[in-house]
């Protein structure tokens, strides 16, 4: 006699929607948008959107990792500004070559993330509080760096990062695609990825299994800030300036992308690709609304409703 209870792998609609829901929504959105505006489904608009969405996806990737560990990082928006300032300052004030400037900004991001991670993981202080504080610190530092002024006079080699193309593909998109592939590999195929999910699922269980919880958490925040720094470089390149006011509110876009993508805010669940699709959804939504001349008040409402619906769908249900 078989020991069978609940072994039947029945097809559960709710499980399926959880995994692929936002993808369906995105497809639906694209369908509706192309019907409502001639310009939407053109190659040019597609490239346009691709460029717009690339830094948002990069931010969402980093934020997604942190949220999977049941943490959160509110400082990414401010870090975008700070890293943009550092990169711009490096090429403009110190005349460093572009790649060195980018490296410097990324390095700063990593150190910033390590700081976040150490304070959160070692001293056990809520991630929300810590990253709120570091967010303000980074924003303040960005303003202090050049007395509140922007940094201009950036060389073309730097600006190309944001505005240039490699063949027909915008450079930010290339950076984004590389990072997406790396992240998917990391989260699905490596030990680190599995440990990140484990810690988010149940930190004590992970600890008892011999997983280095402290080390892994710190790594998550370091990666998140590193990605935010990269996004900051891209924004600075696109705007052709280091701007201390840059990136205000971007952390909300990152978090919204992650939630829309089906990653559980309580951690341990969700595909990192979901964050990518969530970011695409938000950006395409904005693009579609702009192309149809929808007033920005309505845009706020639509985006808020999308977020609430996503949160409702993705709440963990217990029987």
């Amino acid at each position, binding site marked *: 006699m078989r*020991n069978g209870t609940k*072994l039947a792998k029945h097809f559960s609609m709710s499980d399926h929607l959880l995994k692929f829901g936002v993808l369906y929504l995105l497809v639906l959105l694209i369908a509706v948008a192309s019907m409502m505006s001639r310009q939407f489904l053109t190659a040019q608009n597609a490239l346009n959107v691709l460029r717009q969405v690339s830094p948002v996806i990069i931010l969402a990737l980093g934020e997604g990792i942190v949220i999977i560990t049941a943490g959160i990082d509110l400082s990414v928006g401010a870090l975008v500004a700070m890293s943009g300032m550092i990169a711009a300052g490096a090429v403009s004030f110190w005349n460093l070559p572009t790649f060195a400037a980018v490296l410097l900004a990324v390095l700063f991001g990593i150190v910033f993330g390590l700081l976040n991670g150490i304070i959160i993981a070692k001293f056990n202080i809520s991630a929300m509080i810590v990253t709120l504080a570091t967010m303000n610190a980074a924003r303040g530092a960005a303003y202090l760096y050049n007395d509140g002024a922007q940094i201009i006079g950036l060389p073309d080699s730097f600006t190309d990062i944001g505005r240039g193309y490699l063949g027909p593909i915008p450079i930010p998109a290339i950076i984004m695609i590389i990072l997406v592939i790396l992240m998917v590999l990391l989260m699905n*195929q490596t030990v680190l990825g599995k440990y990140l999910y484990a810690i988010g*699922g*149940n930190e004590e*269980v992970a600890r008892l*299994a*011999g997983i280095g919880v402290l080390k892994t958490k710190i790594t998550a925040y370091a990666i998140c800030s590193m990605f935010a720094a990269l996004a900051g470089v891209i924004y600075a390149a696109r705007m052709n300036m280091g701007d201390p006011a840059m990136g205000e509110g971007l952390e909300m876009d990152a978090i919204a992308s992650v939630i829309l993508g089906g990653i559980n805010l309580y951690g341990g669940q969700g595909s990192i690709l979901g964050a990518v699709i969530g970011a695409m959804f938000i950006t395409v939504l904005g693009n579609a609304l702009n192309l149809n001349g929808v007033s920005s008040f309505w845009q706020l409402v639509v985006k808020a409703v999308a977020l609430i619906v996503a949160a409702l769908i993705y709440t963990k249900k217990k029987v």
Partner: protein
Amino acid sequence: MEQPNRGQIVAELQDISKRFGGTVALNQVSLTLKKGEILGLIGENGAGKSTLMNIMSGALRPDTGTILLNGKSFSHLTPAQASQYGVQIVHQELSLLPDMTVAENIFLGKELQKGPGFIRKQECRDRARKILEQFEIDIDVDQKVAELSSAQKQLVEICKSLAGTIEVLILDEPTSSLTEREMVSLKRILPILREQGAGIIFISHKLDEIKELCDSIAVLRDGNLVRREQTGDVTIENMVQFMVGRDIHDEYSRPRFQGDRKLVLEIRDLSSKQYGEVELKGLNLKVYAGEIVGIFGLIGSGRTEMIKALHGLRTIQQGTVLVGGKQMEKLTPKRMISEGVAWVTEDRRHEGVCLSMSVKNNIGMPIYGQVSKMGFINNRRLNETVERYMKHLSIKTSGENAWAETLSGGNQQKVVLAKWLALGPQLLILDEPTRGIDVGSKSEIHRLIRELRDEGMAVLAISSEMPELFSLADRILVMRNGSITGEIPRQAGESVSEEAVMKLATLGA
């Protein structure tokens, strides 16, 4: 029996001491484990068994003492180190990740790797499958743990410990979630491991199992190691005595309620399903005031599902439920409570007690309304009520404001009981009331249940421990496949036959 490597010491604990705040959990405990030895570690709740094993497996650090593994000595271990040196532990509280698959859980922390941190996923799955097959456990390695039943989870938990090198296997209450069926699988594992030269430490409250499976026993009482014997040299009564230091008798007593034995609960022809699967088929059941009805059934028989259906947590296809003679139109937990039905669930940590609330608030929760006037809680009345129950049930704690988390399993269960009793129910439903609870507390709780019965309460008790049913129940109903297959009443003077029960449970009427 030929035991290879017998005689060689595989692990040793020397003078281990541990304090938690002001309480001494372990006091200079020394223990030796030989290769191929199965050691039963017994003691009341709070005696220090889990603490000792947690120290051995790296989950805790001792204050003083040494741990020796295969000759190498440590002042303390990390979980990773312990695992590396072959100490595997199966915890009492399940430590699985519900959102990951069986294979992923089995290899958590011990992933097979290639290259810079990449997981050999296919190999992990194959190996996991092999482990399950070796012990004839029929679970799909790709299934998410959240979808498994409690018993299956327990088995996966055990297999988790088999994924690494095993020098010492520690099993902390491994069978509390298992029914007879799964026990068989476990019993296959032990001799195989012993053959391989591993030492096994088996913590359990089920003394009959200890007697059956273990070569030797070690008894902890109040943090001290008081006895170390060969199992063959002691009886179960001896073991109880060593643990408790006093004599325990837990015998059945006849019901004494003299009042109106009205029909409190009647279920007629109840059929239900969940997620498309049929769970109950035409179930019929009656419970009267002043009696204890025991329910026995194996996994899949539908015992807990019946209670869930009673509370409206399942899709009812047909049937009627009457409480106190009144037909229930709509079944919801709230309605059942207002009709005086109390349900003490299987999972006290998640569904019974609020661990981070005080004992007072746990017990008081359902009765705030009674002890308050116009929305303001009368603290004096609340405290009086709570104290009364704490005394009545002998709840041992540092005070009514202690967090429920700090209580032993037995005392936590008493808190759950107190909470429900405060509502003054007419029907008390108990699902595995003394699972994972030490002998002393078990006996007290049984006594309480009998007292309640004698005062007129109707009691429906589900248990997978036959001795418990035999000591409590006035009638035993056996379930199989979603319906009651038979009833065994208690005849005066006769003892109930275990075989008769098992027959009804496995083969039907």
